């Protein structure tokens, strides 16, 4: 096998994985940017989206529509959680917000267990999605799901980019992230902006959940946890709270994970997650504002 093709294959894998991380990390960063809140329940929106798509799909609805349904129900769940759990504790200590989101995770995951049991469910994908491409005698392969992942991520991120730079609401959201009080003073409806941030973030997570399930072939109540942790790493690498940073961090992390498995000795592969979290800790220590960010927060 030629090394050039091998590297090309790894880049394809990295881009596909990185797209998912980027989708989840951007949601984390959107919410953190506005509320300064570490939302542990974000990963569960993936689970909600995937189970919603599964349930809708089981009713005979075509995949395209159940995908949209997954996104919509993910977004809706995010908004409900914000209204019911996060808004009452807004403005409380960091730890209170964080613990509330931890409790929401616990509730949502157990709700998943209650409704769907804790064992994995098969996630059927339609025929048109269940195919793969091969080039150079099978030295480069990728699936239709990989293509869909990259395409949908590209579309959603372009829409997000347009939203935050070209629309009043998007600009308002960035203003609120910059300075919530000032945004309030100039007459922006901060509550509305926060709801929109949660809807966007959770919708992205719902999309990522459906795509994740389509790649893995299964859904289970605890499926959101690992991607959530990875998204934390991605968001922190890029600079927590920055959208561009989360995007960069997502793709960097995806590439890094694929390359750890592909190029480091195989004994290290099982320790991939441990290596990734060591990287997280290193970033928090030496570059807490991420690759893209200049120092803004007081750190003690």
């Amino acid at each position, binding site marked *: 096998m030629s090394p050039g093709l091998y590297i090309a294959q790894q880049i394809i894998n990295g881009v596909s994985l990185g797209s998912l991380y980027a989708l989840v990390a951007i949601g984390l960063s959107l919410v953190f940017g506005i509320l300064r809140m570490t939302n542990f329940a974000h990963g569960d929106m993936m689970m909600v989206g995937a189970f919603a798509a599964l349930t809708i799909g089981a009713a005979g609805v075509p995949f395209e529509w159940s995908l949209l349904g997954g996104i919509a129900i993910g977004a809706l769940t995010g908004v409900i959680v914000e209204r019911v759990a996060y808004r009452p504790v807004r403005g409380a200590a960091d730890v209170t917000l964080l*613990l509330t989101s931890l*409790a*929401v995770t616990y509730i949502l995951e157990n709700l998943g*267990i*209650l409704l769907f049991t804790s064992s994995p469910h098969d996630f059927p994908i339609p025929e048109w999605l269940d195919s793969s491409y091969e080039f150079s005698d099978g030295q480069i392969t990728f699936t239709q799901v990989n293509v869909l992942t990259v395409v949908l991520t590209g579309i959603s991120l372009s829409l997000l980019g347009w939203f935050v730079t070209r629309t009043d609401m998007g600009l308002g959201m960035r203003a609120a992230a910059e300075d919530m009080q000032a945004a309030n003073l100039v007459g922006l409806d901060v509550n509305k902006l926060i709801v929109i941030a949660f809807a966007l973030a959770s919708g992205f997570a719902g999309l990522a959940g459906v795509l994740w399930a389509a790649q893995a072939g299964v859904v289970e109540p605890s499926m959101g946890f690992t991607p959530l*942790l990875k998204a934390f790493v991605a968001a*922190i690498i890029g600079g927590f709270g920055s959208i561009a940073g989360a995007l960069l961090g997502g793709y960097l992390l995806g590439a890094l994970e694929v390359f750890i498995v592909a190029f480091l000795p195989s004994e290290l592969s099982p*320790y991939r997650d441990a290596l990734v979290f060591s990287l997280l800790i290193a970033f928090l220590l030496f570059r807490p504002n991420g690759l893209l960010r200049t120092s803004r927060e007081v750190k003690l």
Partner: protein
Amino acid sequence: MSGAVRLLAALIGLAVLAAAAIYAPAVLDDYMVRVLIVMCINAVLVSSLALGNGFTGVFSIGHVGFVAVGAYVSGILALPLEAKASLLPDLPSWLASWYIGFLPSTIAGGLVCVALAFAVGAPLMRLSGHFVSVATLGFLVIVNVVLINADDFTRGARTFTGIPMQTTLPWALGWLVVTLVVLARIVYAPTGRAYRAVREDTIAAQAIGLDVLPTRLSAFVLGAFFAGVGGSLYGHYLGSFSPKSFYLQYTFLLVSMLVIGGMGSLTGSIVGVIAVTLLSELLRNLERGMDIGPITVPPLYGAAQIVLGIIFIFFMIFRPSGALGDRELRLGWLLGRRNSSERT
């Protein structure tokens, strides 16, 4: 109270506890005794968690990582030699030919956690706020990954079994008393004031000459010691466990006990343990399914956890500092007397 009276009261209290621990199994049924043992172990873990999370205000989610390390270290050390040869055939020879009893292996588990906490805490205690929580969660994941992959020592994801089930009620209660006495001596002394000063205002604490890092680190390391001890007790109570036993589910349980009881209070930790344990025992029926008159409720797996989560959120909204907050339950208060001693 004068010194002599206090000492006498403490001795009488200890004697009563000892008698209760020894005679309780004769009076109570087996199930109750088991619940009591688990409560004592959880109280060790939650009060040691309170030391770092509550008193120094560095909210770690990685405590259960230390619990796991304590359980595995003491488990490996205390495994009888024959069992060691058959269950862990790939153990390095210096470990394979070694066997120590319950108490020394428990202390060894705690000490390994101390070393680990030094190594992990020295960098992590520089962080604050959400970042320390995310980073300690990362630590928990790393411990879990290492336990699953270090097959030679831990049997990987399979159940680690064969540990002598020696955690009786007197042992568990005894360790709880030791933990509480040590923690109370530290927390309600100048060291403890330094902890709270660092928590309340880091900059002001530095201005009066407190070193933030050593202050936080000492609490983290001491908390880790008792986490290791608690882990060993838990391991010797269960007899068999796997890396999954010491992961997110257990983390959330301990954190909810801590938060519901009150983070800045040792007696609050105990109140939290009792409250959450009672609640879980009551809700356990939900998981079994039951008959209410003519209606049959099917087993609702996860329902108990959902209720606990909702109660947790109610606490966050209406009483974020927990049932007791920074106060301690005092004997004088229990006896209905007004207490004039200092409150911080």
